């Protein structure tokens, strides 16, 4: 039954990708003209300025709003900052796609294309897209400071474990001496 499902899946995948090819617009294909017109040295860093990231995800603003002790203000701040953070992540994701798209359009013409380098770049690209997707989910669910909060929580938790570990080790030694048969 398993091979049957795999074979049918191959056929379905093939049809789906063929449909994608027919749906793809020639406009995208012709973008190569623009891409090839630019030399690699022209490929500037298209990502946004780093200051922007520092500002969006900065804790200072949150702490300032918290000091105001206004639940309404906090709510507005959370909603607005979430939107801005989501916009930034999505824009970054789009920029990453654009960087890779430009690369592909130029690399396809190269006679000395390095397959390993291409695979590595593809892997990096997939990782980035995955991280962006994960960030969107986290920001949607937990807010713009979700990652920092999670990191802080993990840090606190590891410290707590570190503090409790000697006690636990001592306790386990006591338990094992009381019950020599148990591990």
């Amino acid at each position, binding site marked *: 039954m398993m091979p*049957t499902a795999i*074979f*049918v899946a*191959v*056929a379905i995948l*093939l*049809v789906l*990708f*063929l449909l*994608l*090819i*027919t749906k793809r617009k*020639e406009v995208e*294909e*012709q*973008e*190569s003209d623009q891409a*090839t017109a630019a*030399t*690699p*040295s022209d*490929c500037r*860093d298209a*990502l*946004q300025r*780093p200051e922007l*990231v520092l500002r969006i*995800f*900065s*804790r200072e603003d949150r702490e300032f709003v918290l000091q105001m002790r206004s639940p309404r203000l906090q709510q507005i701040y959370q909603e607005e900052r979430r939107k801005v*953070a989501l916009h930034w*992540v999505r824009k*970054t994701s789009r920029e990453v796609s654009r*960087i*890779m*798209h*430009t*690369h*592909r*359009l*130029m*690399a*396809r*013409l*190269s*006679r000395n*294309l*390095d*397959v390993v*380098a*291409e695979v590595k*770049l593809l892997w*990096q690209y997939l*990782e*980035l897209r995955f991280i*962006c997707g994960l*960030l969107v989910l986290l920001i949607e669910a937990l807010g713009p400071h979700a990652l*920092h909060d*999670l*990191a802080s929580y993990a840090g606190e938790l590891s410290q707590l474990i570190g503090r409790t570990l000697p006690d636990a080790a001592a306790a386990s030694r006591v338990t094992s001496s009381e019950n020599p048969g148990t591990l």
Partner: protein
Amino acid sequence: MSLSPSRLVLISGGRLEFQHEGFVVMLTMTIWWLAILLEAALLIRGIQEKLVRRFPIFYSYILFVFVEEFIRFTVYRWLSSRYSQVYWATQFLSLVIGSAVIFEIYRVGLRSFPGTARMARYLLLIVFGAVFAKTLANPSGGLFWWFAERSLMLERNLRIVQGLAILSLVLLFLWYAIPFGKNLKGILFGYGLFIAMSIVQLTLSDTWGDIRLFWPFVQPVSYLLVLGLWATALWSAEPVPEGKRATQLEDDYEVLVASTRTQLRRAFARLGWTARL
């Protein structure tokens, strides 16, 4: 239709036996003749539009199928006891020529894109290597049960290899945004669709009991659909879009990779800041 044999054999081969003739046989003949007509139209238009020169293997395949239909029809009508042998002999020949069509899609589609062509060679090598390794590792239950199993199984396995090869090419074409033009896109879509349908039919023919009654009709009808697609796409010749030569690019590939890598690393760093701030 007094001379009609009792066995209903469609284009897909002698896989089904019917007790009754009449409408079913008439339908078979209609499909058969329509297919022959469409193949003839394709060949005539191909010669008129000089597409035969651009896609010689594809038109050889169509010519072969066209001749094959006549041979099969003749044998089916006047020498039905030999039909099964003739069917499988011609079917495997058409499978071999069909594989060459995939090579032609690769050759014509990637002529102006040496980078993608290089990538395609590696990818196809991996696909065929994996299939071969699987066969060697598990000869009795591998993808090719060359001698132990029936022809039907062998045809299905070869179709799967073809399907994987086309799938790899399609993925590369999509990833590197290779422009096709109407003609090549039609050939690729039609042949890919035909292979996908063949895989489904040949895989499920043994599994689904009652559905076997309908499959022999589905395949010829879908084959007609594919012929219709080809006739539409290849009715007139259209120029193949070519990638612009970037003379500087050959030396600059390493610079390009380094530049892309740097930009992706910067993106990584910035995404990392969101957790560290």
